[in-house]
């Protein structure tokens, strides 16, 4: 399973290097290196972060509907980026946007971790995440209502939809280390998440430090998802869908889903990013729009197939 996914991801990444406005294949070395390579790398990183975070949070919360978006980190990243726009920083400092996103994600993660650490349970993590997410959403709405000019409003809205268009090595340098660190934290959670299948009390009786596990999962997801959102904007549904699809084939043990979900998430985002470049529209279809278009029917299918099961 893991090997199949790895091969699929590698094949899609190779294909992603060959697709673009300039035409199919290696048209030009500069285009390959300066445009398509960083874009592909970012798609892989964003997808892997979302997939692994989704699998870890679903395992942690024992709920197949948990999504990295629940944590509020994506909301924080959006707010940070919107503020960078709002104050016009993005106009004369190209890195201001992703950097603002990163700062926003970090502030949101800090708030969530501080709130969740007080009780150290998965439920408190979700509550803290929803609170931070709502607050960030409201703040973004405020920023939008007071947008200095119509162009800024349009740009912010487009950014929020998520895209990897025109991202370069700067963005890779900004996001990749954080995503990698987040993945390292998440992928080491396997057995602890397995134990949490039996509930937090039973996991504790098996010697698992539940509060530390909650903190580590939250920190890992915050790094992996926050850094991704800072460069790519809001790419939804990947973290929700990928683990659920894999569960049908790879079994339901949470620890066994982490690595496959990282690979599956990477494959899905790379595939979606290839698709947005191929759809012949005047402006590229936004990545976040496409993942939502693909994700919603899949989610509906899962809801119908699994009925009321948690």
């Amino acid at each position, binding site marked *: 399973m893991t090997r199949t996914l790895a091969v699929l991801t590698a094949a899609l990444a190779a294909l992603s290097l060959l697709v673009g406005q300039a035409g199919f294949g290696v048209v030009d070395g500069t285009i390959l290196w300066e445009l398509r390579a960083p874009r592909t790398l970012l798609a892989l990183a964003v997808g892997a972060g979302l997939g692994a975070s989704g699998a870890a949070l679903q395992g942690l919360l*024992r*709920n197949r509907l948990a999504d990295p978006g629940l944590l509020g980190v994506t909301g924080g990243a959006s707010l940070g980026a919107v503020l960078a726009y709002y104050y016009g920083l993005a106009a004369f400092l190209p890195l201001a946007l992703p950097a603002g996103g990163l700062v926003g994600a970090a502030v949101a993660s800090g708030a969530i971790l501080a709130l969740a650490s007080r009780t150290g349970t998965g439920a408190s993590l979700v509550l803290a995440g929803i609170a931070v997410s709502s607050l960030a959403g409201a703040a973004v709405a405020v920023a939008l209502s007071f947008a200095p000019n119509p162009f800024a409003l349009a740009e912010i809205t487009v950014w929020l939809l998520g895209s990897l268009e025109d991202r370069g090595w700067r963005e890779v340098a900004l996001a990749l280390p954080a995503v990698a660190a987040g993945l390292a934290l998440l992928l080491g959670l396997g*057995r602890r998440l*397995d*134990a*949490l*299948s*039996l*509930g937090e*009390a*039973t996991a*504790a*009786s*098996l*010697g*698992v*430090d539940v509060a530390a596990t909650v903190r580590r999962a939250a920190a890992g997801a915050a790094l992996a998802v926050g850094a991704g959102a800072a460069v790519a904007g809001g790419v939804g549904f990947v973290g929700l869908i990928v683990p659920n699809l894999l569960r049908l084939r790879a*079994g*339901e*043990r*949470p620890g066994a889903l982490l690595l496959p979900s990282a690979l599956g998430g990477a494959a899905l985002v790379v595939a979606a990013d290839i698709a947005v470049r191929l759809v012949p529209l005047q402006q590229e279809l936004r990545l976040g729009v496409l993942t939502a278009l693909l994700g919603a029917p899949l989610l509906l299918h899962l809801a119908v197939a699994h009925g009321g099961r*948690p």
Partner: protein
Amino acid sequence: MIAARGLVVTRGGRRVLDGVSLVLESGALTALAGPNGAGKTTLLSALAGLVVPDRGTVSVDGVALASLHRVERARRIAWLEQGARAAWGLTVREIAALGRLPHGDAGAAEVAAALEACGLEALAGRRVDTLSGGEARRAMLARVLATGAEALLLDEPAADLDPAQGFALMRLLRREAERGRTVAVVLHDLSLAARFADRIVLLAEGRIAADGAAATVMTPEHAGRVFGVRIGTDEIPTVLP
């Protein structure tokens, strides 16, 4: 052997445990009984080190529980939660193998032995969410046995099992006690307690109301005082037909 001294646990201003002292000997099957809210579950959790008492101490084989690292504690004490169930469709073998977590090994031999003891060899590859209630309960028990812990603390393992399944479960626990393990079981079914336990500890309002062999604990006086029911001597459920 697990020893508790002067346990006091307060929840929401109410003393759930109010000075409980007791010693669970190795090689004995002890039943914890009492009406709802008597503090049975809290006592068992405190003995397992999962509830930190406001006052009092718990020790396992003479070592204070508070001084043991949580992994070391998990190797010595296995605990089964009341109504334990798995959130995901894990296989029976995957559930049993979770018992090896404190040891950090696969423990294939221990897992196989636990599955066999619970009569689950044929179901080892089945997802636990496709099993009957009794089978799923046995899978949870296999997880407890696979830890190889010296002490087994089980909270209502017989709840909603039919009589045959309940008997089989208690026989299995008896065997574990006879092998020298410390076994304590919260039981609502007093006839099971009377039939299989070496000793019954009767709890009422956070205190030990009676403690001893079934014949000395299951008296009309205790039934009246602890459970608030009036029964004749001949109705006391010492042994089922």
